[in-house]
């Protein structure tokens, strides 16, 4: 257990270490940069049982069922992997497409 985790007094505080990642989604309309934030909680938040939660900064699949790619797991690898898989699987159909990362 890393020392920062001992600073949490109560799981309701949801103290977390943030990990930032960036990934480029390549699609015919142009490249889109997704930033993914992974929260490494000191302890699973209330009503959760997993310590890692990854969330992208923008939605995908906007034309039919828009949603924010997310992933959760018991390791950073699992949470980030699930989130990136959803980014790959669904098209980005918003207006923020840009050509450079």
């Amino acid at each position, binding site marked *: 257990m890393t020392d920062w985790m001992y600073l949490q007094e109560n799981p309701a505080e949801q103290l977390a270490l943030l990990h930032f990642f960036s990934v480029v989604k390549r699609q015919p309309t142009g490249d889109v940069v997704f930033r993914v934030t992974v929260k490494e909680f000191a302890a699973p938040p209330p009503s959760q049982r997993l310590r890692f939660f990854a969330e992208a900064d923008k939605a995908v*699949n906007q034309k*039919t069922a*828009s949603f924010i790619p*997310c992933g*959760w797991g018991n390791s950073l690898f699992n949470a980030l992997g*699930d989130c990136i*898989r959803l980014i790959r699987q669904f098209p980005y159909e918003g207006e923020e497409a840009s050509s450079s990362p």
Partner: protein
Amino acid sequence: MKKLRRHRKVVSVHFTERKFKLVILHVTKSTTKQGVTVLQMKGSIQSGPDCRRLEQETDALIQGKEHFVIFDFCEVTHIDSSAIGSIARCFSRLKTSGGSLRLAGCKGMVEASLKLTQLHRVLELYPNASAAAENFPQPH
């Protein structure tokens, strides 16, 4: 005897793995008096066979001209991010075929996951299947 003991060991390891595996998804199909199809699910929806099953069931409904569907999650305890993707895919396919999808009975971790991904903004959530069936666009 030695062989038998070795066999027993393998069986017990298998049992231990099964013991810790989450409950497999069970799907029951029914139709409301309004003519809406309800897929009642029980267990957990995880990446792999569960998600494939969900999408296959939806594809079968579309092929059978059943385009107005309710997923009843009242007995679903856990979903992962792949399940979120599968639900979005099912909704997209039903919408493209001229139908619609509503979710019923989402609670706890399932409801929290749908809200985290903001899928609840697109998919309407209802407390139970009968509430979801009310005012559903009339099946043709």
